[in-house]
C-alpha cells in the first residue's frame, strides 16, 4: 500500500501503452506491473486501439492519463470530454485519472500543448474550483501532473511547487509528480530541483513519471526521447524517501525502442527504490 491519503495502490513499475508495442504486448503478454493509457487516443474510436485497450485492461492494471482536460483554461469545462473520460475510466477500471496543471487553449481553440499557468492568487483560486468540479464529475480525486515549462510569467507571485501543493490541498486532488519535468522546468528557470522535491506534500503523491529529455544547451525540452539521466534518478530516490512506494511510470514517446528496452528502463526504478532486481528479464529470453 502506498502512503497517500486515499490509499491508492502502489501499482509497481509500468510504462505508457504505445501503438508501436501493441503487437508485441498482445502476442507475448509481457510480465509488466501496469500500463498508463493516453485517454484521448481511445475516446472516439471503435477500431484497433479500443480492441487493444480492452485486451490490455483485461490483463493489467491501468491508469488513464490525459492531455486535453485544460483544467487551467478560462474556457468552460468540456463536459462532453469529461463524460467520455469517465466512461473510459469505467470501461478500463482505471485506478485513477490524471492530467496536467496547465491550459491547452482558450476561445474554443486547442493548441494541443501543456501551456503554463501564471502562478497568481487569481489563477490559484480559479483552478481550485475547476479541479473540484472535475473530481465531482469523475467521482474520484483528479490527479494532476507538474508539466515541463519553458517560460515564466512576470506576474507570478507563487513558486510552481507551492502553487501545485496549495492547489492539491485546497482542491483535495492527487499529484502525479513527474521527476523529469521537475528537473527540466528547474533547469529552464534557474531553480533548485531538490528544494522543489522537498516541498511537495508527500501524502498527495499517487504516481511518478520518469522520462528522458533533450538538452539544447540554453534550455531543456521534455521530449521523452531517451533514457532517464542520473540527476533525475537521484531526484526520484530523494522523493521516494519522502513518499514511500508510489506507482512509477516510464514515458517514452519519441524514437521509441522495443518494448523490452522501455520496460527495462522502467525496471531500473526498482533498484533506485532499493528493491531487488526482478526475474522479468528471464521472461524475455535474454
Amino acid at each position: 500500500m502506498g502512503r497517500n491519503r486515499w490509499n491508492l495502490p502502489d501499482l509497481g513499475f509500468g510504462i505508457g501503452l504505445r501503438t508501436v508495442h501493441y503487437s508485441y504486448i498482445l502476442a507475448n503478454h509481457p510480465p509488466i506491473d501496469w500500463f498508463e493509457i493516453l485517454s484521448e487516443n481511445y475516446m472516439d474510436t471503435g477500431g484497433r486501439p479500443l480492441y487493444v485497450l480492452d485486451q490490455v485492461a483485461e490483463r493489467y492494471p491501468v491508469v488513464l492519463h490525459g492531455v486535453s482536460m485544460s483544467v487551467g483554461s478560462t474556457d468552460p469545462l468540456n463536459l462532453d470530454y469529461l463524460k467520455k473520460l469517465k466512461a473510459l475510466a469505467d470501461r478500463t477500471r482505471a485506478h485513477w485519472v490524471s492530467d496536467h496543471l496547465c491550459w491547452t487553449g482558450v476561445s474554443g481553440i486547442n493548441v494541443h500543448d501543456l501551456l503554463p499557468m501564471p502562478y497568481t492568487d487569481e489563477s490559484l483560486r480559479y483552478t481550485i474550483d475547476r479541479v473540484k468540479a472535475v473530481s465531482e464529475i469523475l467521482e474520484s480525486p483528479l490527479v494532476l501532473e507538474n508539466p515541463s515549462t519553458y517560460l515564466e510569467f512576470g506576474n507570478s507571485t507563487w513558486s510552481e511547487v507551492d502553487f501545485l501543493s496549495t492547489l492539491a490541498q485546497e482542491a483535495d486532488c492527487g499529484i502525479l509528480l513527474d521527476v523529469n519535468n521537475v528537473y527540466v522546468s528547474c533547469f529552464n528557470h534557474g531553480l533548485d530541483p531538490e528544494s522543489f522535491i522537498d516541498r511537495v506534500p508527500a501524502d498527495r503523491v499517487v504516481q511518478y513519471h520518469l522520462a528522458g529529455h533533450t538538452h539544447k544547451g540554453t534550455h531543456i525540452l521534455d521530449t521523452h526521447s531517451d533514457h532517464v539521466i542520473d540527476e533525475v534518478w537521484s531526484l526520484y530516490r530523494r522523493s521516494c524517501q519522502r513518499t514511500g512506494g508510489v506507482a512509477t511510470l516510464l514515458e517514452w514517446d519519441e524514437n521509441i525502442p522495443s518494448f523490452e528496452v522501455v520496460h527495462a528502463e522502467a525496471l531500473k526504478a526498482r533498484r533506485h527504490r532499493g528493491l531487488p532486481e526482478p526475474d522479468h528479464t528471464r521472461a524475455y529470453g535474454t
Partner: protein
Amino acid sequence: MAPDLGNTQKWMQAVILHPGSDREAVASPRARKLVPASEFPRLIRPSRTLDSFDRIGIYRGMYLARLQEALEADYPGLAHFLGPKRFSDLVTGYVDRYPSRSYTLNRLGDRLPEYIRSRPGIVRQDFLYELARFELLMSRLFDAEESPVLTPEAIGAVPPESWETARLKPVAALAVQALRYPVGAYLEAVRQGNPRPATRRKNHWAVVYRRQYALRWLDLSRPAYRLLDALVNGVPLGEALSRVLRGGRQQVGEVQLFSWFRGWVTEGLFQAVELDDPA
C-alpha cells in the same frame, strides 16, 4: 497593470497561433490589444540564457511541429507527394485557417480536403483533393465501430423466397467509392517505398473496408461498383441485381453477379441480412 488570467491566455494563444516570426507575433494587432508590446518583457521573464522572444518562441515552434506531425500521420500520401517544404507550407496555411477545435488531434485534418480544394495556386489540385479525401476516409474507417460479420449460418437461415426483398447491412467500417485518380494504388506504392507512383487520371471504383482491424480495399469493375453501392445504400437485393442486369454498357451475367456477391460476403463486407417483417 498585469492582464487577468483570461487575457493572459488569449494573448499567449494569439502569439502562438500567429504564422509570422516571434517578433511579428508579439507585435500583431490581436496580441497587442491584449498586452502592449512594451509590457511583453515584463510579462514573460527572460531566463539566464533566453530572452522573452526565445522563450515564447519555444511554444510557437512546438505548436506547428506537433500539428504537422499529426497531419503527416493522417495524410502520408499527401506529405509524400508535396515533400517537406510544400507540405509544411500547406499545414501552416491550413491550421491558420482551421485551428484545432477538438480535444483530439485525430479530428485536426477533417477539413484538409476542403482546404486543398479551395486554396488557390495548388499544383495538381484535383489529384491532391481526391488523395486527401481518400486519406481522410481511411482514418474515419480506422476509427469506425467494429461490426459483427455475416456468417454462413446466418445466410443459410434466410428462406430462399426472402432473398428478393432482403437488404444487406454493410459493416460500419466500409465505403464504396467512385474515384477519378488511382489514389489507393498511390498510397500502397508510397507505403512500399516507390518514390514516384502513378498519378495520372483514371476513372475507377473501389470498396474500402476494415477486416480484423486492418484497412483494405478491393478494386471493383463499374457494374460491381453499381451493385455494391446499391446494396450498401439499402436497396433490396432483387432490385439491386436487376438494376445491374438491366442498365449499363457492360454486359454482366448472373453467374458473375453471384460470384461477386459471394466474394463480398466472404470478405466480410456485410454484417446482417435484414428481412422484411413477415407481418
